[in-house]
């Protein structure tokens, strides 16, 4: 992880007709880190992400991605980022191999479909249709489509929402693997355990504003230093550990 800033957001504002979805947000993402945008539903995470992804107009503020200004050359930004949308679907009636062909064309990239699928553990599903995949497999395929153009930055919008504990863990491994190859990852989530395990730094967003930004450990330490104590004594295992030890850690193809 280097300290060069690959994304710089300054005073970002987004107004819808009546709602102020993003209310003056500033932050930087460092090259090679996993950066988390945390917050409850409706806090403005997705809006912020989609503005950086060039999918939404901003009301004001500046965004630079890898030195490219969002205002001046959004299309150049699209070429160096990979985007996974929350709840997006894929072209109907197509097999995964064909969907990869489609995205290879859209990015003007030459890829080996089998290799791409193997990367996300779907090597046997090339001839399946997207709708036939399980929830975890769908998310993994979505992530595969974000890697086609060998992006510098990958944006993942709530990739683990709705997945079972095994599938979540499996996806975390995949995300860490992507980062280990030097790709910067920006992720939104409202699962704090996920952020704690995955993210190098997190920004906590509330009502369109960043209310805290630091590494998870630092935030926790700060809270403890302020005298905070959990009401219930923490045991060395929780219910999720019970569930996983009973049902196994392995992720399965449903």
């Amino acid at each position, binding site marked *: 992880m280097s300290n060069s800033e690959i994304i710089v957001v300054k005073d970002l504002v987004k107004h819808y007709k009546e709602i102020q979805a993003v209310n003056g947000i500033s932050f930087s993402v460092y090259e090679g880190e996993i950066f988390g945008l945390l917050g409850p539903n409706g806090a403005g995470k997705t809006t912020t992400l989609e503005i950086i992804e060039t999918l939404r107009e901003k009301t004001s503020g500046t965004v630079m991605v890898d030195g490219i200004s969002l205002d001046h050359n959004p299309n150049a930004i699209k070429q160096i980022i990979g985007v996974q949308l929350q*709840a997006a679907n894929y072209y109907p009636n197509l097999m995964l191999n064909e969907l990869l062909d489609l995205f290879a064309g859209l990015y*003007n990239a030459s890829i080996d479909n089998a290799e791409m699928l193997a990367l996300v553990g779907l090597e046997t599903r090339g001839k399946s249709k997207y709708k036939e995949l399980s929830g975890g497999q769908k998310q993994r395929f979505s992530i595969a489509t974000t890697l086609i153009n060998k992006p510098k930055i990958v944006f993942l919008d709530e990739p683990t929402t709705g997945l079972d504990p095994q599938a979540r863990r499996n996806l975390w491994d995949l995300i860490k693997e992507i980062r280990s190859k030097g790709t910067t990852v920006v992720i939104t989530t409202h699962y704090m355990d996920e952020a704690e395990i995955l993210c190098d730094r997190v920004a906590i967003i509330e009502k369109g504003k960043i209310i805290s930004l630091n590494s998870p450990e630092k935030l926790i330490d700060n809270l403890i230093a302020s005298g905070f104590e959990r009401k219930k004594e923490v045991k060395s295992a929780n219910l999720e550990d019970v569930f996983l030890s009973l049902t196994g850690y392995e992720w399965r193809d449903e």
Partner: protein
Amino acid sequence: MQEKKNYSQLRAMKAIAVASFRSIIRNPSAVVFSIAFPLVFIVAFGFINGNSIKMEVGIDPQSDTTGTIYHSFINSPNVELKTQFTAAELNERLNRGRIDAVLKFDKASSTNTEVVEIITSQASREKGMFVRSLVTNLIDKQNIEYYKNVSLHVDSSIIERARETTKPTELRETKISGREYKMIDFILPGQLGFSILSAAVFGTAFVFFSLRQTMVLKRFFATPIRRPYIILGEALSRLIFQLLGSSVIIVIGHFVFGFTLINGIWTALEMLLLSALGLIVFMGFGFVVSGIAKSENVIPPIANIITLPQFLLCGTFFPIDAFPKWLQIISKALPLTYLNDALRMIAFEGAGLMDISSQLLVLVLWGVVVYAAAIRFFRWE
């Protein structure tokens, strides 16, 4: 704007066209509506009416059936004789259009000349005219034979003259046989036109609505392709699919049901070219529908409002001339009328692009209007 030097919008567009085409051919309703449905109509009409127009001709019971004209006539194709009725009954049926003509064969006793009397009716004017043409044709033929036989016995100068007089008659004969307008020649272009209209409107409306709704389009927006190329890619695949469908219909129509392609393959290609224009114009309706529809459920009713009246009023099944005048005014305002018209002219009359320029003009004008509306109503998100 600088892009990565080698980024090709066309390559991206081609990827969308390929994906869209794969999706269409796996979509049963697209195949059914574009190919199977029109074929069912063509087959049904092809068999109900035989391959060609049948003329029902009453023979007056008083007829002298020993003459040569009578024998030539009963051996003519497409004629169904009604010999079981009395003169009064024949008259009654002719009046109601149940039969197309009444013929009485006779011999003028003084000159030994054969005489054919024909009665036709307003109730079946066109077929009556066919019968009349058929009879005059037979008479002419017989007269030529007669003169030839006569001239063989005389000197060569008369032969020359006999040849001179035959020439115009021969011309007329070809004209009559060329007029054999089969049911399929009417039905097929109408079905083709309608299949293009419905595929363009329904297909485009559903595809863009659902791509928008399922955020497939949004995912495309996150890639470097520019929006117009998304539309072009989609349009291209629909065009290719629909032209393949049209080709299947034309080929089956031609080889199985004897659909007339006056200049063979060139006529077929001209029909495809015209189909492409029609498709592009009608796709504009689809863009409008996809934009104004609030949910998937309202797409069929809105699309039907556009297609159904044209299905009924634009000469798909019945010639527009069969409608009352006030209804014809509506028919003549609708674009499918002109596509059907132009298709028929190309296929049957061998009309060139110049001959159908007025039809093309109306189609293009509709295109301008519809796309102006599409720009106003189409929504990307």
